[in-house]
């Protein structure tokens, strides 16, 4: 495996140090680009039933799971690749992808000392030293290294409360009833092309179960990291909040520099019962490709939550700065009466990045409410689309939606697009949608300039202000990281 020289500029500690930051910004290529030298157990390229069975066997899955995968695979074969998104990319050769890759040593460890030191170093480079996280921030980290969970921390602490936080493959073995009941119940494999593909070949992912009445004492988090060259990452996340439960889940990711495009087709399913709540936050910072648009990750994700119970709530927050193509619509099915769906999003496209993202809010129950706030920033040759659906069904008495999507444009070669779909079948519904698109304010930049603030910093400030509504929804640690990411993503786009 090729080893690329590390070129990691020193990290900025204090944002107040403007000069240093500017320096950093202009020098930073892709900050977290490096490849860990660990042998991977990779299956040959191509996809057929044998590969599906191989993956299933490799993970020692029971027969029903293998069957389910095969059904999904057969269904996928009959489907056509969707083309409707406002993104352009060369055709994907699904036979030229390796569908399974796992670190060769699969440690079953109880403490960090037993973990491969190479791995630990990787985590340190990522800025998430496990021990520190464990002790200081109280975040349990289920680090997914390529496709297999390597270390799961805080498991014991969570166990006391009856919370299950494990990899899906473990859950398949240990809690088959739960997995059987909920896996594919929100996003069935028939849902779309990439969901079917994911169901057939998903490698691993996180499984969270919060029992009745339990408030998860800490924020659960998984750091994803794509590592092996040309290995598609097919994660599957399933979170279940029983009656009255609460959990906040963080998902964040970085990936190393590489030339070949990588496909990432994850599926996330959330199930919320009566009076329960799930808060799902994402910071996505995969490799966006270089300045000419070469390389970068294809991020085609299906994320959906079902508010099955009364007074239940799902809140999606996402900061999308990475990937060469982002194509995802985290949605909420508001089935239970009085249930609430929220979607807060910041999507940044710079250089040749493309994003087609938004949300779907399906109002079914009575007095269901949804809020959508989407901020799109386009720079360079980036193209940013908001695509959303608000559907109010016949019986959704008193449904309420508010949608706001604002776009900011920097430079004259980028594009910002909005495709909001509003479908209302109930007269008592109140649906509001507003969207604006404008250039970054010259007068604002000028104002800051004449206060002695450099243009680049002024832009950062304005952009951060523009996104504040979304950032304030993020958990503390993420909010800080998100602001830094934004600055790095937009580096050199003005002036």
């Amino acid at each position: 495996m090729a080893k690329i020289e590390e070129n990691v500029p020193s990290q900025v500690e204090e944002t107040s140090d403007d000069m240093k930051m500017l320096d950093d910004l202009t020098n930073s290529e892709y900050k977290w680009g490096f490849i860990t030298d660990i042998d991977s157990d990779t299956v040959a390229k191509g996809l057929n039933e044998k590969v599906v069975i191989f993956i299933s066997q490799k993970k020692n899955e029971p027969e029903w799971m293998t069957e389910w995968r095969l059904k999904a695979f057969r269904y996928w074969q009959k489907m056509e690749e969707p083309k409707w998104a406002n993104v352009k990319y060369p055709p994907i050769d699904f036979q030229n992808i390796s569908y399974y890759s796992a670190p060769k040593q699969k440690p079953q460890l109880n403490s960090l000392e037993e973990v491969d030191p190479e791995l630990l170093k990787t985590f340190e480079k990522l800025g998430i030293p496990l021990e520190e996280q464990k002790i200081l921030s109280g975040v349990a980290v289920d680090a997914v290294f390529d496709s297999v969970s390597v270390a799961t921390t805080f498991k014991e602490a969570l166990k006391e409360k009856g919370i299950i936080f494990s990899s899906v493959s473990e859950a398949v073995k240990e809690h088959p009833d739960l997995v059987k009941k909920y896996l594919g119940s929100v996003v069935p494999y028939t849902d779309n092309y990439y969901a079917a593909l994911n169901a057939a070949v998903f490698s691993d992912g996180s499984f969270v179960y919060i029992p009745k009445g339990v408030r998860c004492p800490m924020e659960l988090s998984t750091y994803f990291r794509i590592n092996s060259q040309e290995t598609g990452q097919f994660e599957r996340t399933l979170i279940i909040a029983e009656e009255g439960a609460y959990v906040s889940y963080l998902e964040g990711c970085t990936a190393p520099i590489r030339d070949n495009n990588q496909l990432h087709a994850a599926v996330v399913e959330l199930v919320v019962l009566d009076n329960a709540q799930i808060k799902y936050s994402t910071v996505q910072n995969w490799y966006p490709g270089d300045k000419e648009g070469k390389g970068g990750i294809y991020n085609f994700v299906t994320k959906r939550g079902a508010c099955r119970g009364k007074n239940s709530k799902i809140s999606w927050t996402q900061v999308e700065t990475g990937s060469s193509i982002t194509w995802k619509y985290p949605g909420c099915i508001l089935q239970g009466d009085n249930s609430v769906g929220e979607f807060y999003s910041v999507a940044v496209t710079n250089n040749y990045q493309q994003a087609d993202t938004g949300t779907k809010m399906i109002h079914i129950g009575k007095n269901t409410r949804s809020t959508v706030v989407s901020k799109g920033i386009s720079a360079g040759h980036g193209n940013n689309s908001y695509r959303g659906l608000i559907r109010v069904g016949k019986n959704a008495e008193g449904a309420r939606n508010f949608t706001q999507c604002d776009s900011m444009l920097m430079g004259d070669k980028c594009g910002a697009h909005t495709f909001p779909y509003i479908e209302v079948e109930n007269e008592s519904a109140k649906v509001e949608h507003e969207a604006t698109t404008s250039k970054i304010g010259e007068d604002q930049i000028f104002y800051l300039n004449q206060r002695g603030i450099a243009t680049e910093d002024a832009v950062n400030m304005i952009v951060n202000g523009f996104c504040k509504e979304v950032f304030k929804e993020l958990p503390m640690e993420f909010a800080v990281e998100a602001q830094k990411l934004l600055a790095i993503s937009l580096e050199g786009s003005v002036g």
Partner: protein
Amino acid sequence: MNNLEFKNIKDWYLSGFDLFEKKLNGESKSFLHEIRKDALLTLSSLDFPANHNEEWKYTNVSPILKYNFIPAVNSILPKFSKKEIEKFLFSNFDCHLIVFINGIFSEELSEIGALPDGVIAGSLRNIVKENPQLVNNYLTRLSKIDNAFNALNTAYSFDGLAVIVPDGKVVDKPIQVLYLNSSGDELILSQPRNLIIAGKNSQVNIITNYCGFDQNLYFSNIVTELYADENAVISLCKVQDESHDAFHIEKLQASQKSNSLFNHYSIGFGGSIVRNDINTLLDGENTETHYYGLYLANGKQHVDNHTFIDHAKPNCMSNELYKGILDGNSHGVFNGKIIVRHDAQKTNAYQQNKTILLSKTAKIDTKPQLEIFANDVKCSHGATVGKLDESSEFYIRSRGVPQELAKSMLIRAFANDVIETIKIDQLREQLNHMIFEHLHRVEIHNQ
């Protein structure tokens, strides 16, 4: 004749062309006939739009395709007296009146009167016959065929409104155009082909009124082309009050040169399936475009408004306000697209779509859409869906106003944002009356 003889409805329309050609006699020698034949070829290669087509996602046209409509030229024209058509006219203001029966110009019923020097207003057919050089650079050049319906219109294009205003001319009085449609023994396909050309520094104000004579089934399939040269000011007010059973499809394609102003009003009442495509290309600097729309639907009506504003040049302004009132089992669709092209810096584009649902069974699908490729722009759109505000209604009722009247007041206020932009007082009043008549609600009068 019935459908069984033809594999699909397209073959039916293709087969009628021979008869049409015969009816044309000497007129088949004009430049237009080549265009017709091309369009027929295009039609044979196109399918009528289906729901999987994104532009037709919410509108199912299959009911239209169930019937074998006969192009009006191939059928017998009904005769109406001046008295009979009177009730369809907007009255009490001075105008040049042009009447079309089933899309074909009626000399007897029209009262064009004296027009300023050089201004032509009347039948397109006559102009193609007598002065083809006036229109051949415009006709079918502005509106490219993009679906089977406008291909069908082009293939059978025969007559329609032609308004040509030379440079510097101002037409003071509005031109009122009545399109009266009615099926006799045969189901009629009425296909006006309208062309409006306004030269440099000219001004014209046109009211088009599409009506059904009685409540029977026919199909109005219209294409309108409009060209506004530099500094031209055009106002086009379309009132659509087709019969309950009628189908109505119109494609309007406008093109504006620099400093021109185009106001388009679309007030829709009738029709069982209605589809309007209103497209404007802002093809010069400093142009201004305003769209005002009000659509009412009741019963099982399906009303689809697709608007498209294409900002191709810098420093232009567009403003769009569409309002819908949906009652009964009606289904409303709105799709407002704004594209700001790469060079169109300093564009201001605004769009609003507001819909009120008056019944539990009414339904709306709305999709405002912005596609922006320039950076120095100000664009916004807004869409709202709701019912009549309960607290406002309560407030009015607490003043001793009966419930039904209170509702009517709110409806009137809602519609007024659009109606008040119409400049002719008498027309405004008559439209207000039509709103309440159509919704079967207590009427509010001025004062």
